[in-house]
């Protein structure tokens, strides 16, 4: 696929940042507000599609994408196995453990430990859930972009995909 006109490319450059940021927000804030790894990942993948259409198919490297995809999936399952260490598969072992970022569950009014997460709404309260969202997001971005690139290459350049 050839790059499109400079108008399209400029608009794409302008839109790129905000949409990417929105996708990242949806991923990282997914345990508290509507959204999560999949939704955010899909939004970022639409940006990737935009970039692909505006700048041509040469932009993305497939190898890196498939590496990110495998890593995301592996990290997700790995986190499930880590839960095994302190309890059971996919156990939310960070919740309520007062660890660095994700474990603090504090009642916003009284400041005391509030038990299980997601009953109240401080940002750093989901335990492993934000991490899982992040990994899912990685996987989804990479996988959907790969699909788009492979099909785009096939449709416009007549190349066989992997």
């Amino acid at each position, binding site marked *: 696929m050839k790059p499109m006109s400079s108008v399209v490319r400029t608009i794409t450059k302008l839109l790129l940042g905000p949409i990417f940021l929105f996708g990242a927000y949806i991923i990282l804030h997914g345990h508290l507000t509507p959204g999560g790894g999949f939704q955010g990942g899909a939004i970022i993948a639409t940006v990737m599609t935009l970039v692909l259409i505006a700048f041509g198919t040469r932009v993305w490297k497939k190898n890196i994408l498939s590496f990110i995809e495998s890593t995301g999936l592996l990290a997700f399952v790995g986190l499930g196995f880590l839960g095994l260490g302190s309890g059971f598969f996919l156990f939310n072992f960070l919740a309520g453990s007062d660890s660095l970022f994700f474990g603090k569950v504090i009642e916003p009014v009284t400041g005391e430990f509030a038990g299980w997460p997601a009953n109240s709404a401080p940002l750093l309260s989901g335990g492993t859930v934000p991490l899982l969202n992040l990994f899912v997001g990685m996987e989804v971005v990479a996988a959907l972009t790969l699909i788009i690139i492979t*099909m785009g290459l096939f449709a416009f350049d007549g190349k066989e995909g992997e």
Partner: protein
Amino acid sequence: MTTALGELPYITVIALLAIGLYIILVKKNLIKIAMGIVIMEAGANLFLITLAFNSGDRLSAPVFTSQIMGGTPATYSLPTPHALTLTSIVIGLATTALLLSFIMQAYKKHKVTSTDEFRRLRG
């Protein structure tokens, strides 16, 4: 259900399923058939979400910040079907992408787009 529309979402579900099925049964173009599947998926997803909305009087989205804003925990629409629908959307995308790439490859190999020609395997 507090709206005046009553059963209309369900009627839409039936309509979407029927239109999708009609496309799959009648239309001969393979890409049209893929579109029919997408429409049927839309119908099934809408069915699940409507179910979640209709269960009792729980009308609000399952956003937990609403509790801080003064809502009671009981006033949210059921989150389970939402999770189901999300999964079904993911699966739908995967099948659509895979099906379209098969159709593209088959076109490249044999130049077929119609189901009448897409029948080397038969008998």
